[in-house]
């Protein structure tokens, strides 16, 4: 578990060759540390960049000429005093600077510790904290775009908006229970039903607009399928530029799927070579074919390759390709007589005939797919967040049903408090008594 009373240090940029590196320190003794490493008696000015030498603490030798920015608590990333040191590139400088910081009492931060402190100090809410954790791990640029949306609070705002409308609905209901009808204006039960329904749909929409983490296991997937010997492995090797997959003229060569990541269009795409589809008694091959079908399910783009008649393979397995983009390719046009027509490509892996036109088509398709995701989803959510949002939907539904069948506001509210708990689990919780306070703010009450 994290400890909080000490100073932590870590390299904030990626280790490796770069022009600059940023080292971050956070804690209570940041000023003391600043003075020690710069050998200066002056306090750093808040939110100001200072150019100074950093000295080795044992022999007082110069390590680097750096830029030091001091952020005064609570106006910093962590909410504590923070020092950001931009050093010149190179691992050795970084290593020496961190060593001298540690000799002054700072300690190497644990993964996520800066963010955790930011959360503890109320700088970010849980959704944002999770967004930051995700961006650090994001392995492609689409993901980081969505995580950014989480971090800058777009998701929080959206969820908060829903939570707020729930709260105000509950406030009206509580108000109705706490005061006499003669003192207040009543809401019809159908109005509650309507509002709850609206809230339900909104929440559904958030889930729909979100890219959930299981969806974002990263890259777009392209599966190459077809009958044995169609030339799947040949196409795979051609696309990836390596002789990774074994090619023979024996049917059923490929058993285990072979995968490789390549850049197509603007994105990294995963290409999968699969076992050829046919009816067989070979147990190993049957397992391989099962895997092929699994890959078809996961992939967004399917290339069906055949020696002459890719459409036939397509038609034979039509129900497997719902909601997939399919590219039909007839291979070996050096020895077989076919031409590109009706959108079916005609190529030769051996001679590379028609390959460029296939490649262009594939990269356009990949770009389109990614852009669609951009357009349709606004943020990313992890499994925890998604399941909470789903629970919220169910809770709202239950409250609504309860109200419909019993007409009893207390029953409906009892379920809604459960929903509110879920919201509180999702984002920074509200202080108790908020509803009661709202009652007084918004209504004319009292005898």
């Amino acid at each position: 578990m994290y400890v909080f009373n000490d100073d932590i240090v870590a390299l904030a940029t990626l280790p490796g060759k770069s022009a600059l590196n940023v080292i971050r320190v956070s804690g209570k003794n940041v000023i003391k540390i600043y003075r020690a490493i710069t050998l200066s008696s002056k306090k750093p000015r808040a939110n100001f960049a200072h150019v100074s030498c950093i000295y080795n603490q044992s022999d007082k030798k110069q390590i680097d000429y750096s830029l030091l920015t001091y952020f005064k608590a609570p106006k910093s990333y962590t909410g504590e005093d923070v020092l950001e040191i931009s050093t010149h590139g190179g691992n050795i400088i970084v290593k020496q600077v961190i060593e001298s910081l540690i000799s002054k009492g700072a300690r190497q931060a644990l993964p996520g510790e800066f963010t955790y402190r930011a959360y503890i100090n109320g700088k970010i809410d849980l959704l944002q904290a999770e967004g930051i954790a995700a961006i650090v791990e994001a392995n492609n640029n689409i993901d980081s775009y969505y995580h950014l949306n989480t971090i800058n609070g777009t998701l929080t705002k959206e969820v908060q908006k829903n939570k707020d409308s729930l709260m105000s609905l509950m406030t009206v209901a509580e108000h109705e229970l706490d005061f006499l009808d003669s003192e207040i204006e009543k809401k019809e039960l159908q109005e509650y039903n309507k509002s709850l329904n609206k809230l339900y749909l909104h929440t559904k929409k958030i889930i729909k607009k979100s890219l959930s983490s299981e969806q974002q296991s990263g890259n777009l997937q392209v599966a190459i399928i077809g009958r044995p010997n169609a030339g799947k492995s040949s196409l795979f090797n051609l696309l990836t530029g390596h002789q990774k997959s074994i090619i023979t003229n024996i049917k059923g060569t490929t058993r285990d799927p072979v995968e490789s990541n390549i850049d197509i269009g603007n994105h990294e795409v995963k290409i999968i070579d699969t076992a050829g589809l046919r009816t067989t008694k070979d147990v190993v091959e049957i397992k391989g074919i099962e895997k092929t079908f699994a890959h078809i399910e996961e992939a967004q783009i399917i290339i069906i390759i055949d020696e002459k008649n890719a459409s036939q393979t397509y038609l034979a397995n039509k129900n497997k390709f719902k909601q997939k983009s399919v590219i039909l390719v007839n291979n070996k046009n050096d020895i077989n007589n076919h031409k590109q027509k009706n959108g079916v490509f005609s190529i030769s892996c051996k001679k590379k005939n028609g390959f460029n036109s296939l490649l262009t088509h594939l990269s356009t398709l990949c770009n389109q797919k990614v852009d669609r995701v951009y357009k349709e989803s606004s943020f990313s959510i992890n499994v925890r967040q998604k399941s909470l949002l789903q629970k919220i939907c169910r809770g709202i539904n239950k409250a609504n049903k309860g109200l419909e069948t019993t007409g009893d506001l207390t029953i409906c509210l009892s379920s809604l408090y459960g929903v509110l708990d879920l919201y509180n689990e999702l984002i920074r919780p509200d202080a108790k008594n908020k509803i009661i306070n709202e009652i007084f703010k918004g209504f004319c009450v009292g005898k």
Partner: protein
Amino acid sequence: MLENNKKKIVIAGGGHAGVEAALAIARTKQKCVLVTMDSGAIGRLSCNPAIGGLGKSHLVKEVDALGGIMGAAADQSSLQMKTLNKTKGRAVWALRAQVDKKKYPAFVSKIIKKEKYISILEGEVLSFNTKNEKIVSVNLKEGSTLSCSSLIITSGTFLNGLIHIGERSFSAGRMGEAPSRGLSESLLNHDIKLGRLKTGTPPRLVRDSINWSVAVEAPGDEIPSCFSLYTSRPYKIKQESCFLVNTNQNTHNIINNNIESSPMFSGKISGVGPRYCPSIEDKVFRFSERSSHPLFLEPEWKNSHQIYLNGFSTSLSEKVQLKALRQIEAFKSVEFVRPGYAIEYDYCPPYQLSPSLMSKKISGLFCAGQINGTSGYEEAAAQGVVAGINASLYIQKKDLVSFDRQNSYIGVLIDDLTTSPIEEPYRMFTSRAENRLYLRADNVYERLYNSALGADVLLSSQLRIQKKFHKALSDIYNKIKKTRVGNTPLEKFLKRPEVKILDHIGPNKGSLIDAEALFSAETSIKYSGYIKNEKERLLKTRRLELVRIPKEFDYKKIPGLSNESKELLITVLPETVGQASRIAGIRPTDIALIGIYLNNKFHVKP
């Protein structure tokens, strides 16, 4: 004799808190002296002639379940009984009694005076003395000293009370009664913090000056119910009516034009008033879009010539009050018996008390009622019972008790008081409870039975009646278990909203307690699914409730805890992690930190 005195409890104040405290002590067979400034004013209703109402009736019922007197006194002096919120869920149904302000205190006085363990002393407690931070005696105004080992302060609105009517202000505890001056100083001297609050009361009108023909009648229930289980059934009273009139734009204009004559608006009153019971000037000012507000005309006692004008609480000058009211048709030539007024008083911020209502600083000192920042007779009575029970336990050197907020509104009340800063006079609302579906009036004798037995506060006659009720209930549950409707067990069948228990099980002939038990059983069954969900949801808090924070716990040493949170926790000194979590301003992450630290240092697992 001296030995005896040492074990004595003194109660300062004979209002609703003081009375219930005295009775609770007497029932446990301990001695107490009820010191009050006017022995003729014991149990007086300072403001409105009503007991119960939304949120509050639940408290009256709970006091009744603990052997208190409020419910019975209201039943005996009621002019009108009405169940409010009847169109809403049963958990929020609330009984309200319009009571006779003369009969109510007379009934209470009679009972108090009969109790041999209670002695009444007319006088004023000026100060108290301590030894090793323990109460040892109190000094009375006339100069004598009473030795005692416990003191319960129930001084109501009397501590440095200051009445305001327009620009005029004068010292008083209530209209016509002197304030209490010394006690505040004594509290301050013992390092106990005080604050200031205010409340208001509407004018009393001369009955014959009202044109009743244009007022709308507001009758009571056709079949009146009563609060107390101990009141004999069938409960019969002659229901009197209240009447309703509405303010109009002219009334509002006059108030608006003279708003600076209200000391609250001119900043003369420093105390904070309740938002839920705003003065008429407050309503007109804050809700200027409303062209009218309802006013209720309530009799103060049977055939009383003075009428309480519910809804017109004010501290405007008498002249303006009159002028504004005379704009209303029914009040064209209205006259006052007494104008409305506001009163400011000292209160003792209750975070300084533990959930037993005993001071955290001074052993043996208890505070109950309005002095703890609450408002209302019912809130005062509820605290009185708790302070009484605990003062009795204290002098017997037994462990003090507290009430669980998941089991009673009394628990909600005291937990709220001891964990959250008071921002305005506190009154009960059902929305303050987390498990409202369970905290109902109809199951109160089940919820609090164990507490009542544990504290031993029931008279033998009360215990007998409670037992009878429980017997009726268990008979009903047995019958339900045996009954089927078609193939469906009755218990399951009853969960359908439209099904009524009476269509399947009739009450024993003539037994009215049976009918009430049937209602309770039906409600419990209908709500059972939802109550189970509520319980599950609250399990997490339940768990935190069980984690005690050791006395020697040092918040300053918790790494990562913000200074503001540390300060809050050190002021309140919560006894459990659950309590800590409810302190306004404490965040869940703070609780997580406390948990980690408790686990590391004290090996307590939250």
